[in-house]
């Protein structure tokens, strides 16, 4: 049987992945005020990567994204934990989050919350795990 060509799929995937990635980053930042957040953002990101795996092959992705996702996971958790530890410096209870509003030049009045860093850790951990699992199974003999 002929090896099917995946032209359609590949071209659509490229567009779709861009959309998904943008969207998941948007979801991640929206999380504090709208539905979304670290989990969903991360999972969305992961599903974009999954889509890449699905339509291209593992090696292609490996070459283009040469990251050990286990390390990503661990760093994600570490980031989350360390934001918590940060509060120890200020002698506040662990995981004390803080936020404030700043007037930044371009963005105008912007809220900056440490919780976002925490959420970023969450997102990294989620991305790392999801991709690790999928890649591990896919690479199995």
């Amino acid at each position, binding site marked *: 049987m002929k090896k099917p060509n995946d032209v359609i799929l590949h071209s659509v995937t490229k567009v779709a992945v861009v959309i998904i990635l943008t969207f998941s980053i948007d979801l991640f930042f929206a999380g504090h*005020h*709208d*539905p979304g957040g670290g*989990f969903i953002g991360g999972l969305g990101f992961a599903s974009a990567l999954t889509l890449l795996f699905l339509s291209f092959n593992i090696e292609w992705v490996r070459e283009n994204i040469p990251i050990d996702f286990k390390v990503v996971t661990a760093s994600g958790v570490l980031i989350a934990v360390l934001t918590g530890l940060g509060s120890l410096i200020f002698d506040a209870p662990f995981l004390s989050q803080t936020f404030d509003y700043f007037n930044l030049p371009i963005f105008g009045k912007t809220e900056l919350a440490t919780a976002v860093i925490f959420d970023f850790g969450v997102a990294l951990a*989620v991305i790392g*795990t999801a991709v690790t*699992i999928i890649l*591990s*199974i896919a690479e199995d003999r």
Partner: protein
Amino acid sequence: METLMSILVGLLFSIGTYLILSKTLLRIVLGASIISHGVNLLILTMGGLKKGGLPLLGENNLSYTDALPQALILTAIVINFAVTALFLVICYRTYQVVGIDDSEQLRGNEDE
């Protein structure tokens, strides 16, 4: 609605349990994931259904639905995902190594 949901949860539990009690490993995994849906719905139901608007401030709702169970479920979903994934892979590896797909045959034999 709560009554209906309770019954639905009960049904999901029944079906999931029946699947878990079956022999096929795959069915067991699927049964577990069905029960996990049941659990999530149960937590949500126990928090009260449709008692207010979306738990998003700034939507001008007079009251909000109970957000705490939602947070709990979110955590539960993710944990369940992790566990299911691991369990699936364990089953899968068992299948590869032991070569059977029948939980009844997973008994240890004496000479090991």
